[in-house]
Structure formats: structure tokens, C-alpha cells
């Protein structure tokens, strides 16, 4: 077989294809200001942090920043605290957030919207304001201690702030909406007929919940819990204020390495570990979850 001779219409088609490619590139160019901004302010500096983390005190390539992290007991403690705080916060958020989402998902829409405001109001209030509010409430002579002592719950003022308790209370309060919103979204999407069918077939309400409702709600719960965990790993403001220097997380160590010790090598190595941890958790999760659901809060 011989290739058919080039005709005018073939030329025309090739031209159109070229035009189309050009048009696509031009359209993509519209995204370039945003990409450029992110490249200059985020990608390149973070790349530089990668580089700095592999440079030793004498200016040559070395792994000493990472070695210090492995050998030093204080760094091990910081990582342990970070995981402990993130894990506990996530667990408490699930225990508190799931029942509330379940409660809201079964209310009539108008009532549910009303209840949803109680989740959204803290969501859009400044995190600094909320942290401050907890500081005021939980301090030694704060409302919580005063009231509890006046009704005789405890006699001595309990220490809630400047320790792990205060940090957890504040962080759970701030993270709860991130768990509730996707969980609520997943629950609303469950077809109620499945539950009717299961009880029709003789399942007790408890069994219907655990074998039908709960498994169907797990994608939202999982997305929310993951979001909370990842956000906790890099959290700074609330633990810095409510932890009062007693609870030191990775992010706080990065800041103090730069602000107090001007030790860019140590700070950047910590930053690289934090970034790699966060990104790999998100990447693994994106294999199982619809990424858009997570970013959009499941709404």
C-alpha cells in the first residue's frame, strides 16, 4: 500500500491541529501568573531549604543535620510529642465529631443548617482569637477554674494552660470543623433506603448502624481525620500559646531554630522531614480518596 498523496485537506487538518495546540498553550498561559508566584515564593525557597539541609557547618555536602536529628534525644522527644499531640487530637475529634455529624445528618434540613452554624462560626473565626479565648477561660484564675471551684468540683485551681491539656483542648476545638464537615457530607449522601432495607430484613437498629451506616460514612470520616492529622503535624499558633513552652512541636522547633539560634541547617532539615511526612501521608491518602473532597472540605 502506498501512502495516499497529501491533499489540501490534509494540510488544512495539520494546520488546525497546530492552531489547536497553540490555543491550548495560550490558555494555559493564563495560569502562569499564579504558577510564577507560587514558584518564586514557595517552590524555589523550599527547594533551597532542601539544599541547605544537606550542607554541613563547613559548607560542604554532609548529612550532619539529619544525623543530629537521629542522635539527639531532644529531637526524638519533639517528634514523639508531635505525633502524640496529632494522634490524640485526631482521636478526640473523631470521638466528639462523629456523633455530632450523625446527629446533624438526621435532622430536617432547616434545623440541620441551624446546627451547622455552630460548626461554621468557629471555623471562620480567627484561630488566634479562639486560642486567646481558651487561654482566658482555662488560666489559673479563669472562668473554668472559678466556676468549678464555686460549685465544688475541685478545690485547688487545676492547671489547664501551659501544658499538654490546654494544647489538646485548643487544638481539638480548632480542628473539629475539619472533621465534622466532610463526615457530615458523607452521611448526607447515604441513601436512607439502605437502612430501611436492613431493618426490613431484621437487623436491629444497632446492627443496621454498624453494618450499613457506619461503613458508608467512613470515606468522609477518613478524609476528615486525615486532614486533621496532617494539619496537626505542622501546627504552630495554638500549641505555642496554650503549650506555654512545655509542649514543643516540630513547627515550633523550626521557628526557634531560626529566630533564636539562626541555625538554618537544623531548621531546614526539620522542615524537610515535616514536609516529606506531610506530603507522603497526603499522597498515600490520594490513592484511596477523592482528593477534591478533602480540599473542598467535602462540601
Amino acid at each position, binding site marked *: 500500500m502506498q501512502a495516499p498523496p497529501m491533499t489540501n485537506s490534509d494540510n488544512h487538518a495539520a494546520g488546525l491541529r497546530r492552531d489547536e495546540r497553540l490555543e491550548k498553550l495560550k490558555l494555559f498561559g493564563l495560569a502562569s501568573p499564579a504558577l510564577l*508566584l*507560587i514558584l518564586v515564593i514557595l517552590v524555589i525557597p523550599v527547594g533551597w531549604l532542601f539544599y541547605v539541609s544537606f550542607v554541613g557547618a563547613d559548607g560542604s555536602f554532609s548529612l550532619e543535620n539529619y544525623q543530629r536529628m537521629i542522635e539527639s534525644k531532644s529531637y526524638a522527644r519533639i517528634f514523639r510529642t508531635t505525633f502524640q499531640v496529632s494522634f490524640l487530637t485526631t482521636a478526640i475529634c473523631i470521638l466528639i465529631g462523629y456523633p455530632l455529624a450523625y446527629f446533624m445528618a438526621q435532622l430536617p434540613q432547616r434545623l440541620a443548617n441551624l446546627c451547622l452554624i455552630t460548626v461554621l462560626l468557629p471555623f471562620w473565626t480567627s484561630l488566634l482569637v479562639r486560642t486567646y479565648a481558651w487561654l482566658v477561660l482555662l488560666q489559673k484564675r479563669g472562668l473554668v477554674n472559678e466556676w468549678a471551684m464555686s460549685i465544688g468540683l475541685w478545690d485547688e485551681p487545676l492547671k489547664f494552660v501551659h501544658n499538654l491539656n490546654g494544647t489538646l483542648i485548643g487544638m481539638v476545638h480548632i480542628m473539629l470543623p475539619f472533621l465534622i464537615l466532610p463526615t457530615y457530607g458523607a452521611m448526607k449522601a447515604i441513601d436512607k433506603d439502605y437502612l430501611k432495607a436492613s431493618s426490613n430484613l431484621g437487623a436491629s437498629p444497632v446492627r443496621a448502624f454498624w453494618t450499613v451506616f457506619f461503613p458508608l460514612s467512613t470515606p468522609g470520616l477518613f478524609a476528615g481525620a486525615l486532614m486533621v492529622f496532617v494539619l496537626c503535624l505542622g501546627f504552630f499558633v495554638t500549641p505555642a500559646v496554650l503549650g506555654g513552652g512545655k509542649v514543643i512541636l516540630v513547627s515550633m522547633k523550626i521557628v526557634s531554630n531560626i529566630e533564636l539560634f539562626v541555625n538554618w541547617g537544623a531548621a531546614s532539615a526539620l522542615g524537610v522531614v515535616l514536609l516529606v511526612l506531610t506530603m507522603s501521608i497526603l499522597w498515600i491518602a490520594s490513592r484511596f480518596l477523592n482528593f477534591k473532597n478533602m480540599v473542598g472540605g467535602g462540601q
Partner: protein
Amino acid sequence: MFKWLHKSATETQISHGQRLWLYILASIIMFLLVVPTLIVIPMSFSDSQYLQFPPDVWSTRWYAHYLGSSEWMLATRTSLKAAFLTMLVATPIGILAAYGLHTSRIPFLRMAFVMMIMPMMVPVVLVAVGAFYAFVKLKILYTLTGLVLAHSILAVPLVVIVTGAALQSYDMNQENAARSLGAPRWKAFLTITLPQIRFAVVTSALLSFLTSFDEVVIALFISGGDNPTLTRNMFNALRDQIDPTIAAISTIMIILTTLLMVLAQIFGRGKS
């Protein structure tokens, strides 16, 4: 509205009485979600150096102190300026990007999208440290320009996601029709598409404003000197002592953000 009370609570015929524990638990949680934040409002009107609830003597002295302090006023001006400029920078850039990503179907689109939402995924401490380094090199540390640029990269992903979602549900054929009738693409976009995604545009503009206004960690690193932000000063004050002035500022911030979000809800309504 309360008709539902007479029906069974779930499809599995549980009565409301059997689920009383859930209602009590949910009420407590909702109480704890809202009240700790709102309690700052009455406390800010206390006359005492120590925040009281309910205040023994009511006064507005902490508001007077805030309004009379040149330091807090400077910080407030910086925050408002930065938030407004961030809105002006991030919204158009984000809309352009969302439109570009939506219409051009090139192979490495997914990668571009991931890069676009990168600022939401990277821990904010690292964004702050990175921006600090970049701004030292670019010589824009402690300037308003630097603050706006850094806050814009946090706001752009929000704009891209919100307007991108609006473009997804918008019928592009309308724009194509306008173009086949002779309108250039930019004109078709401005006169046909933009008016129809305007709710998303307004929402994302308000979100950009709020993102910048509420941001703490980046501001700690790259704002200061002549341009400290409100959040930066608040954070530093919090670490030292519990200054009642912050309760007054917090109250103002709660009212401002609630106002903005109510606006966003009203404008967002028209979407569905």
C-alpha cells in the same frame, strides 16, 4: 418545623426518647464549639484588669485603649491594607488560572493543578520560612509588597478551587456561542461567563481578604518594622501576658469576620 419530633428518629425506627443521650451529647458539643469564642465579647466590656464574666463593672476602656494606641492602629491599618491588596491580587490571578486550567486540556494539567494547591498542603511554617528567605534575597522583607505576595499564594488556591468549581457547573457552550458570533475570547469571558460565575468570584474575593487578615505564622516572619500586622502584635502580646485589650480586638475581629462570612453566604446563595 417540629413535626419531625413525632416521627421516628431514624429509618430504623428508633424513637427520639431512645436517642435522648445523643441529643444531650450533641447539645453539649455545640455549646462548647460556640460559647468559648463568644464569651470573649462580654468579657471585653469589663472594667477590670482581669477579665471577668459577667463583668462587675461594665466599661469600654479597653476599646478606648485600643483606639488610642498608635501601635495597635498602625498594625490594624497594615492588616487591612494587606488584606485588601491580597484580595485585589489573588482574585484576578486565581480566576485567570482557574479559567486557563479549565479550558486548556493539555497533558500536564494535573501537575499544574497540584502545584496550584501546593500552598494549602505545605505546612504553613515552611511557607513562612521559605518566604522569609526569598524576601531577604528580593529585599522586600518587612514591606507591604512582600506581605501581600506571601498572603496571595495562600489565597490563590482558594480562588482557583471556588471559581474552578463554578466553571465546572457552567455551560461553556454559551461562551462558544458568543465567540462564534464574533466576540473575541476576552470579551466573551467578560460579558457572558463572568456575570454567571459572579457569586463564586465574590465568595473567593471575601475568602482572600479573610485569609490574609487572619494569617499569623507568615506574618510573624515577614511583617514587622513599619508594617507589623494585627495578628503578629496579638500573638506577641499573648506570649507575654493576658492583655484585656486583646479581648476588645478579638471582639472586633469576630464581628468583622462574621459580617464578611454572612455576606459570602448571601452572595453564595444565588449559586444553587
